[in-house]
């Protein structure tokens, strides 16, 4: 059993998960380590976002799109049968029920509206499993923008169906043949492409990574998860706030959005990483894709490829705010293995009738493990964000089961 006293008492309302400090800093992390050619473009995105985010017109337009197109608010589902078996009260925030099937749509609709406001005509995106790519293609189609999605050649082979979906939605999918031909290379290629297209295109980063203002902006667009969940928990729970708030972390956008709703509560925040992509748990200080954060590296400082059964967690780093929350002790980061995630996915399917994305299954795997070893005391209340649905993973699961 783990030492439960490792927990630091949650911080009181003190601006944690508010605006970043000067120069886009979350503690020592973050920043704008972009090539000079992109610095001005980042500055323009920041200025546009600051203005838009305080503009009731923009907020209203986004809220409407989230409601009528994406299907928000998403329900909070008590996982009754699983809760009974685990001896804890588990509530699922159902991002899998959004249009396109994952939380990615929250961020993308925000950025697409921002792109229109900035007069951009095209969205650029990177994608791993294809969820962010599909969401970007969807938002672009909805708002009449072009979309260019960079995807590693290896991911294209693994996720043929999502490639087809993006193309059907009118997006151009560009195979990336550099390096390991996965998400990190797709991200590098999207940045290279943006350098030559800043006046015309907006780079729609898919997670809480990248140069300032992206980690902050993407977290704000995902904050809707945490805010809805907080209100729903207040109605559902006698205590008002769950004891634990749990989400999976690749780059960390669904976790950031979820945590943002609970940062000023006593809830204990837990980010669950894949064993083979544990930037927050095992990363070392570095700079990649525009921000200073924690990255998996070898002894020479080269970035190491991540390995996870879930393509969405297959990123060798973590968003800078997560690195900061880890240092503060405000959130805790743990890892689970591929096998635990697959087992958890099957268990959720058979107890609650929900097939989760393998990413989300990681969060659940930790809940199951922690309930079993006493880390989650009996009777605890747990909010877990179910970030996406498992349709995209059925062929992976079929081979394993």
């Amino acid at each position, binding site marked *: 059993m783990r030492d439960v006293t490792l927990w630091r008492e949650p911080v009181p309302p003190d601006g944690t998960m508010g605006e970043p400090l000067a*120069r886009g800093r979350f503690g020592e992390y973050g*920043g*704008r*380590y*972009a*090539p*000079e*050619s992109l*610095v*001005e*473009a980042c500055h323009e995105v920041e200025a546009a976002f600051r203005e838009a985010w305080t503009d009731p017109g923009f907020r209203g337009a986004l809220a409407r799109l989230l409601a009528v197109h994406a299907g928000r608010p998403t329900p909070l589902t008590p996982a009754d049968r699983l809760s009974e078996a685990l001896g804890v009260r588990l509530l699922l925030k159902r991002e899998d029920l959004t249009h396109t099937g994952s939380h990615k749509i929250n961020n993308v609709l925000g950025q697409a509206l921002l792109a229109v406001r900035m007069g951009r005509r095209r969205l650029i995106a990177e994608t791993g499993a294809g969820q962010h790519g599909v969401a970007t293609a969807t938002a672009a189609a909805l708002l009449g923008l072009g979309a260019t999605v960079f995807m590693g050649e290896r991911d294209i082979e693994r996720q043929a169906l999502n490639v087809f979906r993006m193309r059907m939605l009118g997006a151009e999918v560009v195979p990336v043949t*550099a*390096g390991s031909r996965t998400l*990190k*290379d797709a991200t*590098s290629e999207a*940045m*290279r492409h943006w*350098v*030559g297209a*800043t006046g015309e295109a907006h780079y729609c980063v898919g997670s809480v990574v990248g140069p300032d203002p992206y980690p902050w902006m993407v977290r704000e667009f995902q904050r809707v998860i945490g805010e809805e969940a907080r209100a729903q928990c207040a109605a559902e729970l006698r205590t008002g706030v769950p004891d634990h708030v749990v989400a999976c972390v690749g780059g960390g956008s669904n976790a950031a959005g979820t945590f943002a709703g609970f940062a000023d509560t006593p809830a204990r925040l837990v980010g669950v990483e894949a064993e083979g992509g544990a930037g927050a748990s095992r990363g070392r*200080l*570095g*700079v*990649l*894709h*525009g921000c*200073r954060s924690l*990255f998996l*590296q070898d*002894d*020479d*400082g*080269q*970035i190491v490829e991540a390995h996870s059964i879930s393509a969405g967690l297959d990123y060798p780093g973590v968003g800078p705010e997560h690195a900061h929350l880890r240092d503060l002790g405000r959130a805790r980061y743990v890892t689970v293995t591929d096998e635990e995630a697959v087992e958890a996915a099957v268990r959720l399917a058979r107890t609650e009738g929900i097939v989760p994305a393998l990413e989300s299954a990681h969060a659940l795997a930790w809940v199951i493990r922690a309930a079993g070893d006493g880390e989650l005391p009996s009777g605890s209340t747990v909010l877990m964000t179910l970030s996406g649905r498992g349709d995209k993973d059925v062929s992976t699961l079929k081979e394993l089961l």
Partner: protein
Amino acid sequence: MTNSTLAAGAVERHLRARRDTGNGLLMPYVTGGITSGWTDYLRAFADAGADAIEVGLPFSDPTLDGVTIQRAGDTALARGASTRRILADLSGLPDLGVPLVVSTYYNLVLHDGPETFCAALREAGAGGLIVPDLPVHEADELTDVAAEAGIEPVLLASPATPRPRLAEIARRSRGFVYAVSLMGTTGERTALAASAAELTGRIRRLTDRPVLLGFGISTPDQAREAHRHADGVVVGAAVMRRVLDGAGPDDLRVFLTTLRQALDPRPSTRSVTDHDESRRRARGEISRHRRRPRREDPVGTLRPR
């Protein structure tokens, strides 16, 4: 002498002196560790009349490089190239009489910390450092320790850089100002971008520090055209494409000589002897300011702890 000349480091003094002869400056690039005898390329570059040589430390995720430099980096990494090994190779070289400017991404600088990294560069005999993903507003952490270690941090300016930041870049860059000719990544282009002239003009109005144009300059004609606007050129992808295609140091010497001639004021009257003399002069200029590399464990500080 102006104040900026007095404050200038060895790389900048060398480039200013070479510029004052009326010659366009030539800085070829090579990816460190690209072949087993890769430092032979440095000798060939020096022989062809390079005014400075850029040595790239390969990084797994080179976000500002086009396909050629990416491939070169991947090839070098696959051969086992690393910061430590490349700097050890440099330490073992006799003085080429040409300043060495290392370029790499900031992750490799941060890996052991900017202080240790700059000290290791100095030990290896490098004089300058280019970090393309470290823009001026993030550069404080590096520039102070670089100055102490005697390393000149070169800052990049881009066609998209607005005037206030351009002024800061011009003021804080050391060695020279690296003018990125176009909004794009490194790699050969068919013509010099129109943005190149405009950007170099804007930099020149802010500083008399040498200005080198890079990105996309690959032919003698483009070098000649670039020299009409800037003090000289950086040539990377055009060199590395040839290296990747199997060209050896002699082939590169021939290629760079064509660029050298394009950058000289009266190419027809310059002979190889002139080059040798100017290099000897340059050698005197450099060796006063360049610490001799130590032979014993020259980069021990970079070894993993």
